[in-house]
């Protein structure tokens, strides 16, 4: 009897256990939502768009590590610092196996498409239109990144599964990509709030003005690219433009900029008259943090110039980029040094105010405030004997973005100013350039409404049609100069050289540093016998010296990176598609020349 009870009991247990199987293997995530319950209310959409903000360029680049430095102007004609982007600056770009810039942007496009798809299924009561617009903005941003890197790329506007035809589609033309970007931006502009309507807690989110400024930037970029490069950079088999849209783009860009200038409520950050930082707005705008970040005690709330920017915070989101240390090394080239105007609004080569290069402090005298602010970090000029050319460097510093009182106010990696992506000054230079490209002329009123506001902050006389004609200048060159100087090291230079069709000429020149002169033009570095002084050790300059055009005629300068190293060609206007993508999708045609 007992045996039977045992047998039945045990067997029952054994076969009863499968019944509780589900308690062990049918489980739900205890700490994560699934999409089945998400995207039901506006706050879900808001949170999802919040996740897009890492896609913007910032001190932490969307392409990882310290790659933000690749998106400054390093290794361009303005920079003698080649630790980043050397392949671009020298024209030695090879085909990479893979490329984050390609992969990440398509990831961003997928996340935008996800939001758009979830929005189309949304049946809730709350309004989500501004979040939908935000998604359109970010999709446009990703495609513009791809356009700048690669030209035309496959357009994907839905969430792909592995068997969708887009996965192995061929490239769309750059013209189709631009149409896609502009269409997305129109949808973004439609429902984004104006800056004035963004509550304090959401500052830093995309405003209607930011989307408009971005659209103007895209239109100027594309109109000038097409004007100066035509279809020379298109991949084999690419469709051409359906029509000449240049005038349309430029007209629209001008109107967008005007709208922002008139209605955006932004103003240049100009504290030149504040005694403690007299004429040093250009130092403290780019490292602006809390009251300790400048002698005037100004904080980020004083900044009404940034239109689109990355929000950083010493406590919550540090820059984390060894920024001051790296910034100090981003020495400018001879070309850049000579590009800053004199206070009379004339280039140093033409200005009677220019003092030459005999003493190291001379070239800083009577110049654009940006020269001392960006390069010297103070109003104090370099003292005689203070510059040594004994380690192979230019003899110049660089302080844009470097923290004020670096080392005590902010240590390495702790600098946390907001990252400028689009600021009002850029809208001004875009406006002026688009106007001039559109009409071949610009009025003094238009100049006064735009770039002369910047020149005023820089302590440089206004640009007028009279100044141009009286001194044999070229208005377009001066507008471009203003753009170059104002936006120096903010990541526009190489794109500008490309869209103006002048990158080969500009990038294949030697990058030179200080003028060392010779027996006929003595400096602190060579005496009247032409002998190197104790401040100069020529043997530390691997590339020696080169006589180049300076503001004081053709003079010998130290060479930091020789033109013999440089072979930038038309093909380098675009990056090659990463090899892995070409291998994975044989429909992708490589860019010409690679």
């Amino acid at each position, binding site marked *: 009897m007992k045996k039977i009870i045992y047998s039945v009991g045990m067997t029952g247990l054994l076969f009863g256990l499968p019944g509780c199987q589900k308690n062990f293997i049918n489980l739900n995530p205890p700490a994560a939502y699934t999409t089945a319950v998400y995207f039901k209310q506006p706050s879900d959409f808001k949170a999802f768009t919040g996740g897009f903000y890492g896609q913007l360029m910032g001190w932490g680049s969307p392409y990882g590590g310290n790659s933000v430095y690749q998106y400054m102007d390093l290794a361009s004609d303005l920079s003698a610092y080649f630790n980043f982007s050397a392949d671009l600056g020298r024209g030695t770009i090879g085909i990479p196996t893979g490329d984050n810039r390609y992969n990440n942007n398509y990831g961003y496009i997928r996340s935008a498409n996800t939001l758009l798809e979830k929005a189309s299924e949304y049946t809730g009561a709350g309004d989500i239109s501004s979040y939908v617009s935000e998604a359109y903005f970010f999709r446009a941003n990703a495609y513009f990144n791809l356009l700048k890197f690669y030209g035309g790329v496959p357009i994907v506007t839905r969430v792909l599964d592995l068997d969708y035809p*887009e996965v192995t589609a061929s490239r769309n033309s750059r013209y189709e990509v631009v149409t896609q970007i502009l269409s997305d931006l129109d949808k973004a502009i439609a429902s984004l709030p104006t800056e004035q309507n963004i509550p304090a807690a959401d500052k830093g989110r995309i405003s209607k003005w930011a989307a408009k400024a971005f659209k103007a930037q895209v239109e100027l970029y594309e109109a000038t690219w097409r004007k100066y490069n035509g279809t020379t950079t298109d991949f084999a088999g690419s469709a051409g433009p359906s029509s000449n849209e240049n005038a349309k783009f430029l007209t629209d860009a001008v109107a967008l900029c005007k709208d922002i200038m008139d209605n955006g409520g932004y103003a240049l950050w100009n504290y030149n008259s504040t005694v403690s930082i007299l004429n040093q707005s250009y130092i403290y705008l780019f490292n602006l943090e809390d009251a300790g970040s400048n002698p005037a005690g100004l904080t980020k709330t004083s900044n009404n110039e940034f239109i689109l920017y990355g929000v950083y915070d010493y406590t919550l989101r540090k820059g984390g980029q060894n920024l001051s240390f790296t910034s100090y090394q981003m020495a400018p080239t001879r070309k850049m040094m000579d590009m800053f105007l004199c206070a009379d609004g004339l280039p140093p080569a033409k200005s009677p105010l220019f003092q030459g290069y005999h003493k190291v402090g001379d070239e800083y005298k009577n110049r654009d405030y940006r020269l001392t602010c960006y390069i010297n970090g103070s109003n104090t000029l370099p003292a005689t004997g203070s510059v040594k050319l004994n380690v192979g460097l230019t003899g110049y510093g660089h302080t844009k973005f470097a923290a004020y009182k670096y080392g005590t106010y902010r240590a390495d990696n702790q600098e946390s100013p907001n990252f400028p992506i689009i600021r009002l000054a850029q809208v001004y230079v875009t406006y002026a350039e688009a106007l001039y490209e559109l009409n071949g002329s610009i009025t003094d009123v238009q100049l006064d409404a735009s770039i002369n506001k910047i020149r005023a902050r820089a302590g440089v006389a206004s640009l007028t049609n009279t100044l141009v004609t009286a001194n044999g200048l070229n208005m377009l060159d001066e507008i471009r100069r203003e753009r170059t100087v104002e936006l120096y090291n903010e990541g526009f230079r190489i794109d500008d050289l490309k869209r103006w069709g002048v990158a080969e000429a500009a990038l294949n020149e030697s990058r030179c540093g200080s003028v060392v002169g010779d027996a006929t033009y003595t400096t602190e570095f060579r005496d009247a016998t032409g002998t190197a002084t104790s401040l100069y050790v020529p043997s530390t300059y*691997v590339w020696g010296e080169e006589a180049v055009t300076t503001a004081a005629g053709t003079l010998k300068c130290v060479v930091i990176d020789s033109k013999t190293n440089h072979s930038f060609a038309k093909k380098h206007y675009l990056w090659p598609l990463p090899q892995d993508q070409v291998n994975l999708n044989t429909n992708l045609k490589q860019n010409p020349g690679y």
Partner: protein
Amino acid sequence: MRSILLLRGSVFLSFLFVSCLMLFGQAAFAQTTKVVSGTVADTAGKSVSGASVRAKGLRGGTVTNESGEFKLTVPVSATTLVITSVGFKDTEMPINGLAVVIQLKRSNDQLGDVIVVGYGTQKKATLTGAVETVSPKTFESRAITNVGLALQGASPGLVVTRTSARPGNEGLAFQIRGATSINGGTPLVVIDGVPALNYYSFQNMNADDIESISIIKDGAAAIYGSRGANGVILVTTKRGKGKVKIDYSGNMRFTTNGITAFSPNMQQYATLWIEANKEEAIPNWWGWVDLPTMQKMQQGVEGIYHTQYWGDVFLGNADRIHEMFARRYSYQHNISVSNRTDVSGYRLSLGYADNQATLATAYDGQKQYNLRFNYDYKLSERIKLESAVSLINAATKSPSSGLDASLYGQEQPFYPAKNPYGQWYADYGTVGDRQPVAATSDGGRDNQNDLTMRLDMKATAQIVKGLSFEGMVSFQNERYNRERWVTLVQTYDWYGNPAQKTVTATQTRLSTTEPEKLDKNNPGYLTVANNYVYQYYSGFLKYSKTFKGVHNLSAAAGVEGTKWNGQGVAAARLNFTDLGVQDLNLANNASVATSGGKDVWGTYSYIARLNYNYGEKYLVEGLARRDGNSRFADGFKFKTYGSASLGWIFTRESFAENITSIVNFGKLRASYGTAGNDVGIGNFNYLPTVNPGSVVLGSPAAVQTTSSLANNGLYTNLVSWEKVEQKNIGIDLLFVKSRLSATFDYFIKDNIGMLTSPVYPAVVGATSPKTNSGHLQVKGWEAVIGWKDSKKDFSYNVSFNISNTQNTIKNLTNANSYVAGKNGVLNGTAFVNGYPTAAWFVYKTDGYFQTQKEVDDYYTKYGAQGGSMAGVAKGSASELRPGDTKRVDVSGDGKIYDGGSQTSDLVYKGDGNQHFVFGLNLGGSYKGFDIGALFQGVGKQLIMRNGWMAYPFATIYTNQNTNFLGKTWTASNPGAEFPRLTTAVNRAAWNYANNDFMLQNARYIRLKSLVVGYTLPENISRKAKLERVRIYFSGNDLWEYTNIKDGFDPEMGETSQNSGYPFYRTWSFGLNIGL
């Protein structure tokens, strides 16, 4: 593959052949016979079944039945019976009358031992799988409390590696028979029949509690299904036995520095710079200004030096290694009480150990507390209860900073720890943001506590004779707590002025949602509490019976359910001042980070095993498991695994009689099985989950919650565990009365369902989910050979084990290109089809340029093509000169290039996995004295040092490896082993990095353990009312021999800058007392 089939075929043939012989044998003795019957029992009176009985000099015979009875027909002329049984000494018995009683004595070959296998036990003799046992002797008197470390070298299949000697931070890794997958995977640890919640509850268990360890290496691990592919370590704990017994053991030990040659002194550092600059056209003295300065350093002159960047600094002789590491003391105590009666049995043990590493500036070690109470109770003759309670608490306490790269990598050997004012002296005189002596002394602490509690209940009920039911429940709970604070340490220059920076202030990044990412050198306070609960339930029916005396059958079937829950919380605040009391509340709450987290997974499995043997001669085993898992979608949850194995004890055949005087036992084994590898699949990968995140927006800036989709919304439910097939053949032999033993196994493992990530075009925008499409093959062998003997008071034993594995990546998506250096590190990238993991692809070199003409010709040929030469371009500061390395254009395309596969100039030079891992055990005793030594080592492992000290001037701003001094090219030493020294880092990289001659064989042999003991004669210990008194010396890592050329310890791993914490030697004195 082919050979396996052939071998397995031959086993079958042998079966047939033997069966025929037996039939013949019986027919031949049909006439003039008598019938002898009897019983066979062991010395304790327990009947021995399956013993073979035959008449001496004749073939054929019979075996005893379950009750030890036999009946044998022999010729009338037969006078003697020969009885043999595995595990017993062969016995001869004269036939006096027709009924005999035979007593067998146990042999010392352990074949009769019952060992633990998956969900059961088996006699060692009749095992068909590759199962290794580790005797508890391995742990006796060892001056370590980490079971894992004690297993180094103990078993041929199990390879235990460590990367540090620091208690609690050893970085132990276990691997059975080599890697199974590129995605990793570790052996499953099963303690008393239940998978352990974590490795701590194995590593940190009290070795004194271990009765035995079995290691399942082959397909037999299939019975553990999806967790079995990396092998299984089965641990059985001691239970109460015999009369009341109290044992105490304890030891005291100290540690001394081991290999420290990697750390230079001031003179060597300066010499390296001077020698390198002798070779430079443009000398680079970096911040040290000029040659005279460095000559002064070369002479070891202490004093103020003028530097270019750091002003006037004091440099003195400061050897960090000897300044920071010194003799430390550790202790260990164990006490146990045990007893068993007819009704109940118990064993209670307590252990305490304080293990300290050699750090002299602060406590760096682990305190370990162990408690185990095993209690058994017999409810009735049929029902038996077994229970166990165990607690393991390991408290690891260390400095929170200063033991990273700043310990030695960034620290040149000439900054004294303190200035004349007794203040912490800053490195570089004024910079002062790192200083390991200050950081470890005053920079804060990292305290981790791990408490694992476990409760087991097992009931066994006999239903009918031979059939029983076993039910088991186990609850395991791990509580992990951590508190870490990092405080700023002000440093000073030589004159007492505060330095520019403070130590540990280098990084302050606080991820608001991931407080544990509060970087190591981040001033602030972190607290973490994690709680894991593991539940285990199983029910088994077990059956075992012998039919007709020769058919031995045992079978088991059951179900098992497990569930794992985890929950954690972490919080951190930035900025903390240590005023002697440490708590999160005392840290500045201006910036706070918190995170939570919960997870769960479960399994449900159906398990069956069947063993059959015919007269303990022909052995068959079949195992099956159907595993259900919560990690897969409905319809995909279940997967089936299984194995089959055969064995043949050929020495039990009568035809083998001629050799049994030499080979007294021989068994052939063959097995095939499939098991799963439990890696690479998250708990809810099959669901589209929303991941929370955060963004900083607003003015003033604040954190906003964000969301994103896991893997950007691309997911699949089609993947499953990796499926690993394993084939094994083995042979076990005992010679000359079991004094000589040998075991050999050969195996092939095929991971045919290895998770790989197929790559789709990036326009998809998400990483494509993994698929089970990869294939890794591992082939290997193991051998053990041992000898033991004794004469009167003297006995000795020697055993040597060695194993080797070689893996090959057979099929992996997109794995056809390689990079310079090591390719395919486990859990990494850059695997190459057709090559092993950790494959070395390096530049082939052809010596060094001897003349400028050779250099010029080289530039003419390859210079304009870029590739790897971009870094040493002609005309650049890094231009090549005589003495520099000549890399060979292997592909012949006129370019020196390291990318891809066809056009590159890299050549395959072997792999970086450990090969020929061995252990050598020597032991002996004479009267009261005993001695035991365990040597462990690796026969071959190719490594290439990486990081800052990989070769001279890999970077200029760090410490330097001066072991290259005198071995580099100079005009007067053109035949040197290494190329010329250079202070230009690009040229140094060309000369050294990833060149074939930089591969070195990290083989070594190390005296892991040496134990010398003396047991007091009983008549003396009895006087003190003690059963047993033994005193001993025990040492670890006392001696080694290695081929490493650059001064590092062979076990440290390849990275140079993190390896500043020296391995040490342990010397200990201990006492065992039995009451």
